[in-house]
């Protein structure tokens, strides 16, 4: 029995002139839609949560824990956070949440990240939703025009993200104090922040731009043995970039949620010693 009988191709896309004339837009029978759907669901949930927390401007510090959404504080109107790496560069005039000043850097880092680009191009823009599933648009210019040509500044966001990771590492260090500021203590919050910063570092260092900067740009590895070793290390991490992107996204949200719960007295931080 024959199905889908058609004449010569004369359309666009996979029905462009000369190509095999097949009526179906695609013939995939697997659940190709599942991955982009999950991506959209998780990223949307994160956007909603982080927007709420970024604008909340409250419950982001519970001695000795600082929420990663609010560190460092670049405005004057912040909670008193002893020993935190705050720098009131924006002074008094900034009246909105200080989180908005700092979140732009990790947001830009993830927005221009090569992995997240794949994820949201597929999930949100259907460009394409899945391999061999056609796009729903008639024209495509890729990353050749504004605004998508700005994806090329990913390396600058990497530099800022590395600075933020250093500051978050400091936040973990000062979390080895108790609520009175005495050193040599650890609570569950310390472990939460520590796990988060390890994942943040792994994600940041596994970045494709980092891989290029440390050694990928070289033509002669043999003349730069130290950079070659760095490149090899980053390349191994880079192979897990997708997993690290998701894991660090979850961890940063969970770290903030933990601080929020402790700061709002919804939860008592268990102290180990």
């Amino acid at each position, binding site marked *: 029995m024959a199905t889908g009988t058609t004449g010569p191709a004369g359309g666009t896309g996979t029905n462009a002139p000369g190509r095999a004339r097949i009526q179906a837009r695609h013939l995939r029978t697997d659940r190709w839609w599942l991955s982009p759907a999950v991506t959209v669901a998780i990223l949307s949930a994160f956007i909603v949560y982080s927007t709420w927390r970024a604008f909340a401007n409250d419950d982001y510090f519970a001695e000795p824990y600082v929420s990663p959404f609010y560190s460092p504080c670049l405005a004057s109107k912040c909670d008193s956070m002893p020993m935190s790496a705050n720098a009131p560069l924006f002074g008094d005039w900034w009246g909105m949440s200080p989180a908005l000043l700092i979140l732009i850097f990790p947001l830009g880092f993830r927005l221009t990240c*090569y992995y997240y680009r794949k994820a949201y191009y597929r999930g949100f823009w259907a*460009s394409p939703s899945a391999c*061999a599933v056609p*796009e729903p648009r008639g024209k495509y210019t890729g990353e050749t025009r504004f605004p998508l040509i700005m994806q090329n500044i990913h390396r600058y966001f990497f530099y800022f993200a590395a600075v933020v990771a250093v500051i978050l590492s400091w936040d973990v260090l000062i979390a080895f104090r108790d609520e009175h500021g005495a050193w040599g203590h650890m609570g569950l919050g310390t472990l939460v922040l520590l796990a988060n910063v390890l994942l943040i570092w792994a994600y940041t260092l596994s970045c494709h731009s980092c891989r290029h900067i440390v050694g990928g740009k070289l*033509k002669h590895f043999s003349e730069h043995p130290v950079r070659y070793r760095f490149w090899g290390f980053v390349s191994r991490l880079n192979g897990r970039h997708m997993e690290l992107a998701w894991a660090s996204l979850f961890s940063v949200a969970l770290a903030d949620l933990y601080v929020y719960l402790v700061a709002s007295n919804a939860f008592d931080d268990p102290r180990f010693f």
Partner: protein
Amino acid sequence: MSYKADFRIWRGDVDGGELRDFKVEVNEGEVVLDIIHRLQATQAPDLAVRWNCKAGKCGSCSAEINGRPRLLCMTRMSTFAPEEVVTVTPMRTFPVIRDLVTDVSFNYAKARQVPSFTPPADLKPGEYRMQQVDVERSQEFRKCIECFLCQNTCHVIRDFEDNKAAFSGPRFLMRIAELDMHPLDVADRQKAAQEEHGLGLCNITKCCTDVCPENIHITDNALIPMKERVADRKYDPLVWLGNKIRRRGSGD
């Protein structure tokens, strides 16, 4: 274990065609190409299919199976449930010749546009010396069997015929990356990649990597490094300034 499988095969040519249904015997250990050959032997002697090595090394039997670009000879029947209908069509990015055979000359035209290996002018054949560590990165790309499944699945040309003139596709951008990473190649591959071969059109959605039967990390190891090298040249003022001050090129 043998069973009768339901196959739908696209039959036709440039003037039109259709998906035709067949019921055909499948035996344990067989691949889709075996079934196509059995169809030729028993029910459709004029069914056109391009194949050669039947070992996943010649890159001839590229097609689409249940909508996914794959090699017919490397797709085991055991990956399908016995009751599953298996649909086989030609690659949908290239002009069809007949049945499962397409005209892939687009790729040969693009290949000719990539200048070959260009050693320094003062280096004669026989004088080439290089360290293994300097060449091994690009050796991954030489595993390519030119099946053109990556070209077929790339949405830049699959969904937009107009882009074929400006975009060479992942296979040839990978070839450019291979040459750009070669320790003795001195041609300006980065400018060519962006301005002549359409690297900026790639939005790194990784379908080329997903379908590669040789498991070459096309996106992570070729396309993204090339994008970063182009960013050095075109979009990074600090690198540009650094190269000006130190009078150093990108070939160190």
